[in-house]
């Protein structure tokens, strides 16, 4: 190690304790021991810096699969798709918990071990720190010139005066100072011992303790919070109960009765798209107008909901996370009756808002009808691509769909996605030449189905918004935790614990001052500090000012 590199603390005990020596590091292999001793040995291993380091690495490594394999809690659709595409791997991945890494057994094991290690590490350090708070700076070592930085120089002042000056200079630099006058002789010489930077260890402890606070806040939110998603067509309403959600993820200890009874109506939704330029089609702004009630008897209020502008009510917050189109259709069956009328949610597939959806008409007679296909907000057609959307705004909307007849399979009792046709018992209508009977319908048009099976009318376009309703109760705790952690970290990284000694002796009628320093953390600028102290001790005028 080079001289200007400070001795680095080897272990938590040394970081806090007054002793400059390092405590024994845990032995690396278990000697033959009684169970009790074995347990102590294991505990010391677990709470060692090396274990903490290894666990930190495991934590980082363990998080990687969570970014590669789709996570059920993050994107359940993507996860389901992945499972479909990988029939052999999926069961293995499932066993390994790779679809929800962050609450898998092994990931939990890593961070719980880390936290145990942390507690085991902090508690003794807190104790030592508590004792160390009142400790006095250690006496000057015999040979100051052996320390990483040292200076020897002469001053004009008498020893007693020089000693007092040293005390004052160190005290002004906020050292905790002890003066030890020489016991033999009455030369007036002696030594001053100074120590400062006690708050560094406090900062370090605060940082580590705060990590626990963050974890508590995070866990609290996961246990007692919830997150639900719902698509609401403009003009329709939502009230906060379980049955209204399209998907709902409760925390482990969250009960459905805990949902607060707020409700709202989506009055309108508006979006602006960039009309020209290379990035034409990019949305520049969108917002939904809501009318909401915090409780069923509360007065109705309005709110403009936008990205980065959520609605906060008692028991949850409402966020705008997406939007799309819901074409309005009227379907008549073979008997001429209206079998379906209303908007149908289509899901956007790309940034042009080419959207995919299905229309199920179980009430159609004599046979059930189904439609599957695309909604194109601004219709375009080319031979290579077929029908496509030129622009995301609804400038020239067209439904391009295939009609089916038969049995929709809704009676089997199995739940079905509203975005998918179950085609086992459905037949597509075909033209005489055997081709599919594709219908391209513009707004206001009605198209007849072959063989008098009915008709479909494209009445117009509604928009829908995808909303997320959620609550994470521990978030304030977690926030307080990270902020405290940051404060502690700043103290830990930038406060430099440092010891400085000054010895004043009388030699051949001259006053000789020895000055030396020792940094107790790495990365310090001890040399600069010692240079400055030297200047102040030598400069008698400045020194006088300090003394008075």
């Amino acid at each position, binding site marked *: 190690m080079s001289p200007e590199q400070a001795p680095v603390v080897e272990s938590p005990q040394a970081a806090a304790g007054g002793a400059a020596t390092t405590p024994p590091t845990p032995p690396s292999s278990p000697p033959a021991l009684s169970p009790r001793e074995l347990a102590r040995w294991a505990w010391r291993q677990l709470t060692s810096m090396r274990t903490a380091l290894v666990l930190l690495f495991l934590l980082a490594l363990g998080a990687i699969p969570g970014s590669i394999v789709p996570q059920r809690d993050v994107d359940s659709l993507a996860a389901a798709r992945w499972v479909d595409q990988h029939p052999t791997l999926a069961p293995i991945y499932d066993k390994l918990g790779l679809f929800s890494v962050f609450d898998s057994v092994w990931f939990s094991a890593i961070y719980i071990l880390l936290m145990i290690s942390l507690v085991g590490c902090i508690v003794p350090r807190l104790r030592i720190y508590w004792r160390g708070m009142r400790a006095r700076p250690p006496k000057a070592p015999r040979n100051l010139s052996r320390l990483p930085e040292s200076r020897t120089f002469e001053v004009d002042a008498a020893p007693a005066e020089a000693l007092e000056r040293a005390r004052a200079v160190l005290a002004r630099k906020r050292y905790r100072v002890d003066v030890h006058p020489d016991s033999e002789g009455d030369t007036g010489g002696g030594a001053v011992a100074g120590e400062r930077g006690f708050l560094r260890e406090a900062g370090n402890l605060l940082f580590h303790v705060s990590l626990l606070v963050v974890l508590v806040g995070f866990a609290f939110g996961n246990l007692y919070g919830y997150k639900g998603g719902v698509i609401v067509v403009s003009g329709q309403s939502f009230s906060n109960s379980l049955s209204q959600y399209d998907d709902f993820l409760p925390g482990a200890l969250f009960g459905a009765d805990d949902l607060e009874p707020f409700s709202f109506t989506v009055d309108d939704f508006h979006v602006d798209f960039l009309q020209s330029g290379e990035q034409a089609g990019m949305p520049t702004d969108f917002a939904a107008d809501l009318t909401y009630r915090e409780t069923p008897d509360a007065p109705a209020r309005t709110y403009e909901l936008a990205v980065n502008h959520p609605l906060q009510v008692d028991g949850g*917050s409402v966020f705008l996370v997406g939007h799309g189109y819901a074409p309005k259709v009227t379907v008549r069956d073979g008997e001429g009756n209206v079998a379906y009328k209303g908007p149908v949610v289509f899901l956007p597939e790309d940034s042009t808002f080419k959207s995919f959806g299905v229309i199920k008409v179980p009430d159609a007679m004599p046979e059930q009808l189904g439609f599957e296909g695309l909604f194109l907000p601004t219709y375009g057609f080319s031979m290579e691509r077929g029908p496509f959307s030129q622009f995301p705004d609804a400038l020239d909307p067209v439904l391009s769909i295939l009609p089916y007849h038969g049995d929709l399979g809704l009676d089997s009792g199995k739940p079905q996605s509203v975005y998918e046709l179950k085609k086992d018992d459905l037949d597509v209508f075909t033209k005489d030449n055997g081709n599919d009977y594709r219908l391209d319908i513009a707004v206001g048009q009605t198209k007849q189905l072959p063989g008098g099976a009915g008709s479909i009318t494209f009445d117009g376009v509604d928009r829908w918004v995808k909303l997320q309703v959620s609550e994470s109760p521990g*978030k304030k705790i977690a926030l307080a935790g990270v902020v405290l952690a940051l404060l502690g970290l700043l103290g830990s990284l930038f406060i430099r614990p440092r010891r400085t000694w000054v010895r004043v002796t009388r030699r051949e009628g001259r006053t000789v001052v020895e000055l030396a320093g020792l940094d107790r953390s790495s990365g310090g600028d001890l040399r600069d500090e010692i240079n400055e102290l030297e200047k102040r001790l030598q400069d008698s005028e400045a020194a006088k000012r300090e003394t008075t």
Partner: protein
Amino acid sequence: MTSADLAAFSNNAIAFASVVYVLAFLAHLVEWVVGRTVPVTVPEQRAVAVGAGGPRPDAPDADLADTGPDQAEQAERIDRFGRIGVALTLVAGLLHLAAVVTRGLAADPVRVPWGNMYEFTVTATFGVTLMYLLLLRRYHLRWLGPVVTGFNVAILMLAVLVLYVPVGPLVPALHSYWLAIHVTAAIVATGAFTVGGMASLLFLVRSRAENRGTLRTTGYIARLPQASVLDRVAYRMHAFGFPIWTFAALIAGPIWAEYAWGRYWGWDPKEIWAFITWVVYAAYLHARATAGWKGKAAAIIALIGLATLLFNFVGINYFFGSTSQHSYSG
């Protein structure tokens, strides 16, 4: 100037800045090439000699003291090229700054210049230059000159050729002042980690030579400060970057995410990798205080940290683009 003028100005400024970075790089190259023939006084001897207020061992200029008259002249030439390199870097940095500012002004409405990957890259590389120039004097960083300028040339080239998009307004998800706070912090931390990573890399090279006894008296490696000095510079950069990264990734990011998406932490790929980066740098700081991990192992951990940081920036957008809520930044 109209928006279009400003946008064109920004593009030109980037082109000029790149050219000047190349010139700065060349000047530093000449500095080191000329330096190859001039022996450096053996650092170990010097370290001992440094007693009461002697020359600072981390100043490369000090290496050239007490050499013959010929060599003094050579030393003067070396120093001149070094200073030219720094001056050119300063010019490039100013052009770079102008490019960043006009890029933001060119948008309508005016906004922060980091709404997509091109802009983030251009601004972050400026962060690297800024960090280097600010600390140049304090830590005597001139030995980093070739690395910083070379790095910026390469990355800017990549930005212009691969990532370029014309100026446009922000997507609605970015309409928030948290964009300014969160991303500024991320950029500053990225700059500090990048410079720190360069120092760690040079530390590994230099300490390898020192330990194997293959350290020659001439050449770039010989002219680098001692390994212990490199280690300390690396530590300071990382220690500066870490709290800022903590703020960017674990405070500002979650607060914004809570506003925008209704969850402060959602294990989105970008968030996962920001977390991984944080954990790896925490491990670096830990390693420096752990017996057996100081020095080489710690430096390698720091480089792993930098790799995760860059992967998060580049990799996530390319590999997980559509599954990440952060993907609009691509």
